[in-house]
């Protein structure tokens, strides 16, 4: 079988599996967030915390929950890294430096999982499982909770109530993320991913050399890393490491896991607003952009432009033999478009134009299909913008799902879409102007600039993947990227929740003959167009200086 035919089958199997699973999973998630019953374990948690899970919150209270919980998480994770040597199972690793500990805490709490450290020689068993892996769960749950609050804003009327943050958080962790992760982790172990709390293990090879084999609770972290679209690898090589991703099937499974919740949430949205077709219009836009990206990158990587790749006879630099070009390209597009940021191959060594597509995937704002929760709310904001543009064309007050998109709503949506471009473009410009960008580059020229642009794009959009030649572990970049990650995560949430509150207060507008039918393919097309135009206009100059200059040189 030719590689290309095999790749077509891999993508087909992936789409088939997602199509099969999104309905039961999406419906299940809707039921979880709409249920009035609490599990016994949940009741115990609420009692210990002193929270009333049935108390409805208006948007400021909901937001306060999100922000305070996340701030406490940052502090806790920071402290854990600073004192990791004091715990058992520390593997002899030293405390992490203050700037790197802040960067890592900001990174894992904001669901970015940018890693300026190298897992196998920095983080102890305790930091990995009780710090980083915990944030993999709860940061994902916070994202989903905010998305659910926005959906309630559309679904409810004449009330400011958006649900209860604690209940959404706990249910998401216990009823959704943990069960999926347990199953996924066991499958990964069965395929060869390691799962132990041993010590670094030195063996003598047949040639008489010594080799140190790393231990770790890898499979359990790998599962939630993908399911929660986190992306922080146990090891520096991330999902390229054979202990994290041992074969072609685990590679496919990991791609499936990182896509499954983002592609199922629109179904949850459709259920909760009482019209599943609305969800399909959203999923259509997500899938279209993702699929175009997969085709573009796979095609470019097989064509292998670039002097070194041409000489080698293929674009295998920074790729594993068991995955090859096709499976690596599919992973790369899926991880950058979901805000996951785990990698099974190194994007820095992809050809210039592929790198540009991956960058663009993040610049779209992580909405195709985006991170868990953040993908859905990001896409719904774009839907509001698209409805607004359509409204301008025909001169009608725009409405979406029976809610008027007035001045207040459009202001909030506009603020939302301005945040990440501001952070990443200013971050990149500052780094370049202060000479901090140049000193951290591995590559020269346009590709070197792409490394800096990629770093700030990845941090601001909470992706976490890197053109990893970029030497990010400096005081300057640890601090600035840490700020980009925190602001890029939580400022948008402020606007999302404010918008949710404002929508929930409205009374519904009955549809008329002139209402834009947002459940039709025409709207999906309009949405994709709006996304591409807005992103294109915002980022074209930066892309032209980096990947386009390199790719067309």
């Amino acid at each position, binding site marked *: 079988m030719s590689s290309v035919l095999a790749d077509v089958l891999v993508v087909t199997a992936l789409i088939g599996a997602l199509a099969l699973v999104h309905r039961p999973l999406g419906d299940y998630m809707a039921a979880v967030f709409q249920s009035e019953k609490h599990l016994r374990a949940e009741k115990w948690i609420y009692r210990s915390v002193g929270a009333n899970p049935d108390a409805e919150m208006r948007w400021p209270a909901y937001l306060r929950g999100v922000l305070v919980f996340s701030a406490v998480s940052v502090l806790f994770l920071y402290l854990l890294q600073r004192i990791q040597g004091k715990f058992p199972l520390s593997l002899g690793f030293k405390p992490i430096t203050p700037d790197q500990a802040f960067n890592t805490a900001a990174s894992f709490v904001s669901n970015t999982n940018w890693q300026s450290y190298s897992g196998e*020689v920095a983080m102890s068993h305790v930091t990995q499982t009780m710090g980083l892996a915990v944030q993999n769960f709860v940061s994902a749950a916070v994202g989903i909770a905010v998305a659910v609050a926005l959906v309630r804003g559309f679904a409810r009327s004449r009330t400011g109530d958006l649900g209860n943050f604690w209940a959404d958080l706990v249910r998401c962790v216990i009823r959704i993320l943990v069960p999926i992760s347990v199953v996924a982790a066991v499958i990964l*172990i069965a395929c060869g991913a390691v799962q132990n709390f041993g010590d670094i293990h030195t063996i003598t090879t047949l040639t008489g050399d010594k080799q140190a084999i790393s231990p770790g609770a890898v499979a359990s972290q790998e599962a939630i890393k993908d399911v929660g679209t986190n992306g922080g690898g146990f090891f*520096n*090589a991330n999902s390229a490491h054979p202990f994290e991703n041992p074969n072609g099937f685990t590679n496919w499974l990991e791609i499936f896991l990182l896509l499954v919740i983002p592609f199922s949430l629109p179904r949850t949205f459709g259920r909760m607003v009482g019209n599943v077709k609305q969800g399909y219009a959203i999923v259509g836009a997500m899938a279209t952009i993702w699929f175009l990206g997969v085709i573009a990158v796979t095609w470019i990587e097989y064509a292998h432009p670039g002097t070194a790749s041409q000489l080698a006879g293929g674009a*295998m*630099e920074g790729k594993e033999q068991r995955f090859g070009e096709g499976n690596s390209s599919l992973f790369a597009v899926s991880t950058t478009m979901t805000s996951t940021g785990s990698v099974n191959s190194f994007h820095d060594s992809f050809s210039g134009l592929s790198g540009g597509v991956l960058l663009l995937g993040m610049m779209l704002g992580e909405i195709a299909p985006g991170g868990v929760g953040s993908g859905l709310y990001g896409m719904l904001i774009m839907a509001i913008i698209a409805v607004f543009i359509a409204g301008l064309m025909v001169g009608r007050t725009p409405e979406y799902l029976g809610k008027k998109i007035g001045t207040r709503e459009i202001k909030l949506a506009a603020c939302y879409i301005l945040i990440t471009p501001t952070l990443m473009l200013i971050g990149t410009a500052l780094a370049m102007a202060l000479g901090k960008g140049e000193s951290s580059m591995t590559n020269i020229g346009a590709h070197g600039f792409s490394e800096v642009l990629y770093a700030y794009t990845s941090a601001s959009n909470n992706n976490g993947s890197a053109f990893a030649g970029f030497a990010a572990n400096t005081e300057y970049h640890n601090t600035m990227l840490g700020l980009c990650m925190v602001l890029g995560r939580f400022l948008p949430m402020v606007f999302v929740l404010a918008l949710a509150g404002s929508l929930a207060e409205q009374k519904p507008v009955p549809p008329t003959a002139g209402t834009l039918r947002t459940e039709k393919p025409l709207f999906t097309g309009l949405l994709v167009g709006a996304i591409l135009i807005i992103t294109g206009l915002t980022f074209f100059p930066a892309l032209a200086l980096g990947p386009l200059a390199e790719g067309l040189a």
Partner: protein
Amino acid sequence: MVWASLRMLLLLTVVTGIAYPLLVTGIGQALFHDKANGSMVEVDGKEVGSKLIGQSWNIKGTDKPDPKWFQGRPSHSGYDPLATGSSQLGASDPTLVENVRAAKKQVAEFNGVPESEVPKDAVTGSASAIDPHISPEYADVQVERVAENNGLTVAQVQKLVDEHTDGRTLGFMGERHVNVLELNIALKELAAKS
């Protein structure tokens, strides 16, 4: 709110940071003991490596490849599992061009084949720097040299390579590959017998 948040975080740490990894470790260790501990491979009762972690096949203490063994892909960390990751060089980078050119020349001379026959995985660094596999094409290129240096016939060694060539997982996922450690262990056994 702050204390409630802290208590919530600690409780969720118990669930996801302690109970979850321990549960998974318990299941993994009980059902898939060898895999959960790194798929270690033994020769004569002694561990000689992990099936999943690539190794250096240089002559001990040097950076010269040992002609008696099948060689893996170039690794910029010398197959050190505590320094995983790739070169990070761009596809047009002058250093990478130089590395590829040098690797191509070295592989061609070492195996006595023309440069045009050197496959792509033989001259490019992997993503992990501990890639345990090579392409079947790269194994084929090495057969003659390995046979000669182990006192075996080309047919014997070629048969070994064919036996150790793994197809794609489930027939279509991933790429075809040869596990270098397993191949070399089989080679050692065969050479000892003859």
